């Protein structure tokens, strides 16, 4: 994770009023927490971040109907909640239906449940990832065409 990416996350937290955001990508884990009283933002990069785990792309059970989107994770406590949309599968992240096509969603866009946010491709299996909540897309956390791990956060959505 680069300094620029961390800076972008800090902006995400300050711009949206999220209380706390924790993100792990590969071997890097970052937790950004807003102080309740002050306007400053704390950034913690734990030195004991666990190594990246190559998680299986499918659930352990061989006979599970795969959810289009895993259960959203609420990272912020109490009032200001952000839902992270995570990848249910190891694959390649595509922001649009085809190269050169407009992305499925843009930052700042309001989405409804069922709205396709991106495609994760794994072995020519194109997995449409849908919003499970109505809200505003506040951040896209992966670049188009990049590989993603199982459970990696793809988008942050602030529910309406």
């Amino acid at each position: 994770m680069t300094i620029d990416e961390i800076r972008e996350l800090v902006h995400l937290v300050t711009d949206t009023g999220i209380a706390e955001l924790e993100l792990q990508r590969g071997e890097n884990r970052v937790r950004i927490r807003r102080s309740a009283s002050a306007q400053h933002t704390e950034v913690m990069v734990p030195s004991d971040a666990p190594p990246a785990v190559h998680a299986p792309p499918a659930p352990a059970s061989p006979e599970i109907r795969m959810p289009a989107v895993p259960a959203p994770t609420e990272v912020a406590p109490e009032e200001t909640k952000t839902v992270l949309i995570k990848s249910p599968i190891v694959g390649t992240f595509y922001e649009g239906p085809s190269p050169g096509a407009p992305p499925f969603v843009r930052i700042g866009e309001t989405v409804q449940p069922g709205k396709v946010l991106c495609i994760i491709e794994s072995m020519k299996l194109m997995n449409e990832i849908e919003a499970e909540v109505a809200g505003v897309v506040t951040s896209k956390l992966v670049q188009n065409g990049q590989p993603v791990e199982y459970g990696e956060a793809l988008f942050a959505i602030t529910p309406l």
Partner: protein
Amino acid sequence: MSFDVESVRRRLPGRRVEYFEILDTTMREAAELAAAGAAAGTVVIAGEQTAGQGRHGRTWHSEAGSGLYLSLVLPAASPPAVTLALGLAAAEAIARVTDLECDLRWPNDLLLNERKAAGILVQVESGVLIAGIGVNVNHTAFPEELTGSATSLRREAGRPFSREELAAELCEAVDRYLRMLRAAGKEKIFALFTQRSSYARGRAVTVDRPEGALRGVTAGLDGDGFLKVRTPDGREHLIIAGGVRAVGA
């Protein structure tokens, strides 16, 4: 050539078989049927597609009356191993009908003499898996941009084949391989793929990736079915999407 959908229905009793002379894409139609409650096993066949889908925005050349273009609503299955199982199933169906033995290019392209005779795409929409299978059956020629990379069953065998028979065999073979995946696990599918595919091990390949092409030699599948490619510096890379081509192809 017209398509005798009734003969397919007779071969596949109890299964919903929908046929359209012309569709934009069988994938969209199958997804809509699934969303409306169509059971697993439902199959959508088109005589011609005006917007046949390939991988991530690519198109599938879908000439009228020559190819078999079908989409199947799949039962719940373990992705992405299911994509390898579908390639094995299609190869078996083609062998039963034509005696042609396809090579499998990871993950599931079907090749005859290094040219693509059939392709498979799987989409997950709202939790439902839909497989799209396109087979070049009776094409005698291809558009210029495909002549070096595509072939048909007819061109390879020197005679035409029944698309109806192939459709029925495909549906039955997919059922068999998905049962095998459920009963014996993904390891069984990976072992069969490794046996059958010349691309699984020891093949010099290039892999198209957004960050640049990778050139190396294939080194088998990992525990999840992803393709391992060893580069000249001795490092092993895991290929998770596709875009694998033989060097020189």
